[in-house]
C-alpha cells in the first residue's frame, strides 16, 4: 500500500529540477520541469511580465529575449537549455527607458497596443548590436519573425534607423 502510494505520488510529479538562472544580471533559483519553456519561467517563476506569450511555437516573436546577447524565442526554449547562460529580458534593457532602441521607439511613437513591442524591441536591440547601421534588407531579415497586428511596421523600420543614428552619435 505504501509502495502504491509512493508510485502514485511519483507519477503525479513533474520531474522537477533546480536551476540557477541569470536574468538581467540577477540570479533566480527556480524549481521547474526541465521541458517547461523559458517564457513561463520568466513570467510565472521570475515574475517578469514584460516578455509576452503570443503563439507558443516561435511564430510571432512576442516572447523574444536575449540568450547570451542573441535573440531567442523563449516560448519554445526549454528552461533546461537556458541554465548557466545569460538571459536578458525587456526589463533588463535599461533601468530608465534610455536604451537607444527605447528612445527611438518613443521618438517615432511606435507602440499602439504595445503587446508585441517587448519582443520587437529585443529583436531590434540584438540587430543593432550585430549590425550598427542596418540596411532595409538587414531590418527585414532581423524583424521578419516578429508580428505586430496593430501594423506598426513602418514605424519600427524608422525607429531602428533612428536608434542606429543615436548610437552612432553616442559613440562618436
Amino acid at each position, binding site marked *: 500500500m505504501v509502495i502504491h502510494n509512493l508510485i502514485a505520488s511519483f507519477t503525479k510529479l513533474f520531474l522537477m529540477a533546480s536551476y540557477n538562472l541569470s536574468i538581467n544580471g540577477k540570479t533566480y533559483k527556480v524549481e521547474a520541469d526541465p521541458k517547461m519553456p523559458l517564457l513561463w519561467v520568466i513570467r510565472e517563476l521570475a515574475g517578469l511580465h514584460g516578455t*509576452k506569450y503570443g503563439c*507558443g511555437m516561435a511564430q510571432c516573436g512576442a516572447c523574444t529575449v536575449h540568450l547570451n546577447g542573441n535573440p531567442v524565442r523563449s516560448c519554445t526554449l526549454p528552461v533546461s537549455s537556458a541554465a548557466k547562460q545569460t538571459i536578458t529580458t525587456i*526589463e533588463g534593457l535599461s533601468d530608465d527607458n534610455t536604451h537607444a532602441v527605447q528612445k527611438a521607439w518613443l521618438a517615432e511613437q511606435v*507602440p499602439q497596443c504595445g*503587446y508585441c513591442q517587448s519582443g520587437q524591441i529585443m529583436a531590434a536591440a540584438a540587430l543593432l548590436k550585430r549590425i550598427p547601421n542596418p540596411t532595409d534588407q538587414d531590418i527585414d531579415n532581423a524583424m521578419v519573425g516578429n508580428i505586430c497586428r496593430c501594423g506598426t511596421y513602418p514605424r519600427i*523600420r524608422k525607429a531602428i534607423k533612428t536608434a542606429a543614428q543615436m548610437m552612432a552619435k553616442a559613440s562618436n
Partner: protein
Amino acid sequence: MQTTDKNLSRRNFIRLGSMTGAALTIGYAMPGLANEAAEILTAQKAVEKGIELTAWISIDKTGKVTILNHRSEMGQGSFQAVPQMIAEELEISLDNVNIGFAPGHQSKYGSQSTGGSSTVRSAYKTLLRTGATAREMLIQAAAAKWNVKKNESYAENGFVIHKPSGKKFGYGELVEDASKLTPPKDVKLKRREEYKIVGKPLARQDNPNKINGKAEFGLDVKIPGMMYAVVERSPRFRGKVKSFDDSATKKITGVKNVVKVSRPVFAYECEGVAVIADSLWAALEGRKALKVEWDDSAFEHLDTEQLYARMKEDLKKTSLSQRTGGNPEAVFQKSEKKVDAVYETPYESHSCMEPLNCTAHVKGHKVEIWGPIQAPDWIQQDVSSRLKVAPENVTVNMTFLGGGFGRKAFTDYTYEAVLLSKEINAPVQVVWTREDDTTQGPFRPGAVYECKGSLSNGRITSLQAKMAAQNMNHQWSPVPDKTSFNDSDIEGFAASYFDNITNYSFSDVPTESPIPVMWWRSVYSSTNGFAYESFIDELAAAAEKDPLEFRKAHLGGEKGERYIAILEKLGELTNWKDKKKNDGWGVAITECFSSIVGEAVKVSKNSAGKLKIDKVFAVMDCGWYVNPDIIRAQVEGSIVMAYGAAAVHETHFADGKAVETNFHQYKMPRINEIPEIEVHIMDNDEKPGGVGEPGLPPFAPALCNAIFDLTGKRIRKLPFNINEV
C-alpha cells in the same frame, strides 16, 4: 516622463474627491445616456444630492491632476485622446497628469463599449465642457481670494494668473475654495485656433510603459490565491461535451480540478472542459493529457467550399432591400452598356497579439473581473443578469488590451471566467492559447457580392449591389426574424454617391451557417468597401474614364465638397496627372464611422516579374480631431491589417472546424511586405469622425485597382496571392 504610478483605483479617486476641500473633483451626472444633457457637478454636490458622480478630473491640494479615461485602450489611443481634450480646456500640461481607467459602469459612464471608432466623436463636447467648467471654477476661486473681478484673471499651465498684477495661484492652492462653488453653466469653450493641446501630435502617455514591459495587460494580472485555467474547447462551434476522461490530467502536479464549462456565444453555448491548476504550465500540461468526447450531432459540419457555394446560391434568391432609389433594374435592362461582377471576401480571425483571457473572482454576491476588455459596461450588465447579482456588485477592472479589433467587445470569455471562479470558489485566470484564439471565432463573416451597373455618356445610370453573407444580428436568437435586412449593406459606401447616382439598390440575402461571426475592425465596411470600390473602378474602366476623375464626377454636388477635396488631395500627393503609362495606380474612397478616407496605391513589377507595392497614400477626413500622430498611426495600422485580409490570411473551414490554428497557418503580414505609407489628414471644421477603423476599407480595392491598372487583371476574390499576380 514615467507613468508607473498612473494607475489609480476608482475607489481612491472618489474618496479623494468626496473629502470636502481636499480636492476638486468634477464630473457629471448622467441623465440616462444623453451625453449632451449631462449635468456637471462637483463631488461635494454629488454627495449632497445623493447621486454618484461620473468623475473625470480630480485635482488635489498639491496640484496633482488625475483624469479618468472611460474607454478601453487597445492601441487606438483613447488613453491619450480623452486626457488631451480635458487638459486643453483645463489649461494644464499633460506631463503633470495621472491617467486612470474607469471601471465598467454604464449608469455612470454611459456607453463604454469601445467600438465603432466612437470615443472622441461620442464624448468630445462633454469632455471639453468638463475641463472648461473646472477651469472656470478655479479662476472664480482665485478671483474671490484676490477680491478682483473674475474676468481679470486667466488660467495657464496649472496656474490662475491675475493679469493686472501678475499674481498667481497654483491649482492646488485653489481646490479647497473651488470645490465649494457651484459649477457654472454654459462655460465658454475655446476656439479651435486657441488650442495648445488638441490638434497637436503629442506623444502618447501610455507609451513609456509600453517600451519597458511595465504596461499591464490582461495576462499580467495576478490576484492572491489565483488559479489558472485552460479549456479544451469543442473544435466544432456548437459541439457538446459527451464525456471526458481526466484520469491522466489529475495525475499532473498542480492540477486541482477538471470541470465542464460553457460560454454563451449569441444564442448558443460553446462547451469545453476546463483544467484548473495552481500554475499555467500545469494547466496546459493537464489539458494535453485530457480526453474529451464531443457530441456534434445537432448542427451542420460545413466546409469553406460548401459555404461559398451556398452564398452564391443565395445570390439567386430574392434579397432584402436596405436602400433603393429610382428604378435600377429597369434602367439596367434597357441600358446598352452593362457591367456586372461577383466579388468574394474571406472569413477572418481577429488574432489580437494578446490572446483572449480573463481573470474573475466571485465572492458570494460580489463579482470582480480583470482583463483586456472592450465592453466593460456590457460585461457588467451581462454578469449581473446571468448570475442574478446587482450591477453595482460587479466590478470590471480594465487593463491595457493587447489588441481588440472587435473580438474583445464580446462577453463570452469573461462570463466563462466568472463561471469557473464560482465553481471553484477562488479567483481564476482563464488563458486562451493561440490555437483557441485562432480557431474559436467569432470570425469576420465572409461575403459574396453581385454588382450590376449601367453606363451612359461616361456616367453611371444604375448601380445594384446584392450581398450574400451571414447576418450577425440573426445570431441573437435561435429563430431569428429572417425578414429583416442587413442594416450594414451600405456601410463603407461613400454617401455622396447617392446624390449622383439616381438609380440604385443595396440589398442582402442572409446566408445560414452555424459559424459564429462578429464585428472585425471596420465590420461589414471591410468587405463592402472591396466590392463597391472595385466595382466603381470596373465602371470607370468600362466608361474609359480615369478612375480618379470618374469618382470625382460621381461624388460631387451640394454635399460632395469633402469627397472632392479628398480626391483632389490624393491627386496632388500622387502627382496623379503625371503618372507614367507603365506605372500601376489604383484609388478607392470609402466612408464609415463618420469619416471619409481615400487611398491610392502604386504597384510595379520587378525584373523577375514579381509584383511589389511601392507606396500607399491615404487621405483621412475625420473632421475635428485631437491627435494627428495617433490618427496617422491608426491609418497605417488599418492599411497593414487590410493588406493581411486582402493578400495574406483567411480562415478556412473543413468538416465544421476552423482549419488554421496558429500563425504558421494563419499567416500575418510581416515587416518585409509593408511598403511606405504616407498619411494626410484633412483640416476642416466638420464634426469629429472615427479614427480607428475608417482607414481599413479603401486599401484592398485601391490595391486591386492598381493591379488592374498595371496588368489588366481584375482581382475579384480575396485573399489573392500577391506572388502569383
